[in-house]
């Protein structure tokens, strides 16, 4: 039985496509499978992986974007993580940082805890929520051609994008999880370690 908003995209293929030739993108990944997907696409010092702090990914992206207005910031997170921080969609829209984009890997499930149905599987449309919060640019990708287009837009626009991925679970890829290490290497890579 298909649920509302359920997709068919392969999450690893989606993230590998979004992060192909990442250049100097600054990336924040939300806890759970989004962190595994971003790590599997290639570990880099300017990947900041969350293993907790659920609901905080988009706001961390905003803090970075305000501090580094000449760099592009991309937040990649899941539907459950975005739902917990749903108010931050309004906070981000109010700031309208031109160098910040958010990509939600929406499998309509809380995948990490047993694939319980999330609100997106029960009818919540996160792209519509973002638009109602004031995001000027929102998009939904349902096939890889649309993902390819979003790859470029996520690097050039203040875009909120939902990628309708399949609920299929992938083998876990575990990137570093020591927060002090991740923070320090990110700041060193940016050249702000002494700030």
């Amino acid at each position, binding site marked *: 039985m298909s649920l509302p908003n359920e997709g068919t995209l392969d999450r690893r293929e989606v993230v590998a496509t979004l992060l192909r030739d990442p250049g100097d993108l600054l990336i924040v990944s939300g806890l759970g499978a989004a962190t595994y997907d971003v790590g599997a696409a290639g570990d880099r010092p300017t990947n900041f992986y969350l293993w907790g702090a659920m609901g905080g990914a988009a706001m961390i992206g905003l803090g970075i974007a305000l501090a580094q207005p000449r760099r592009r910031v991309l937040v990649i997170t899941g539907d459950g993580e975005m739902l917990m921080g749903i108010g931050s969609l*309004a*906070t981000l829209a109010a700031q309208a940082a031109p160098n910040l984009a958010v990509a939600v890997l929406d499998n309509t499930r809380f995948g990490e805890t047993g694939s319980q149905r999330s609100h997106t599987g029960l009818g919540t449309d996160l792209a519509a929520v973002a638009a109602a919060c004031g995001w000027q640019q929102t998009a939904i990708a349902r096939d890889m051609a649309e993902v390819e287009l979003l790859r470029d837009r996520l690097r050039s626009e203040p875009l909120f994008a939902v990628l309708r991925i399949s609920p299929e679970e992938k083998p876990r890829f575990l990137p570093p999880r020591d927060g002090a290490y991740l923070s320090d290497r990110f700041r060193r890579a940016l050249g*702000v370690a002494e700030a």
Partner: protein
Amino acid sequence: MTAHPTWQAGVYAALKAARVTQIGYVPDAGHAHLIEAAHADPDMQAVVLTTEEEGIALAAGAWLGGQRAALLMQSSGVGNTINMLSLPLNCRMPFLTLVTMRGEWGEFNPWQVPMGAATPGVLKEAGVHVRRADRPEDAPEMVAASAALAFDSQIAVAVLFSQRLIGAKVFVK
């Protein structure tokens, strides 16, 4: 509007001297002067939040990007932030918050009392160093020292502004 503009101006000056350039806030009357000052300052990013834990994540992002942030909230908001405190603590990031206390001095609204009473203990249990300003002449120095502690030692510090310092909210005028 503000009862003690002199000490509040001193607190803002202390944040500036500590090189804070991002201020996240959930409004409180006791923070009104700081919020107005932040919005009026072209070198300050003032970020209105929907809930207080957003400000902890904002501060983490600011630090990752090479800036310093502070979170303004009232004691009722402290309870909203607890799990997000794992972010600065686990990542050994600085975190500075200024908390206006409710529920402790001439409080009219009983709904403010439980969280107000629990605030210092909850913060300490979560790993935050807690300082308290009771007198206006102490507040700017307390913030300056707490900012140094937070940013230089990369720890989490909360400065509680007592309700006696701010003045109890008047409901029946």
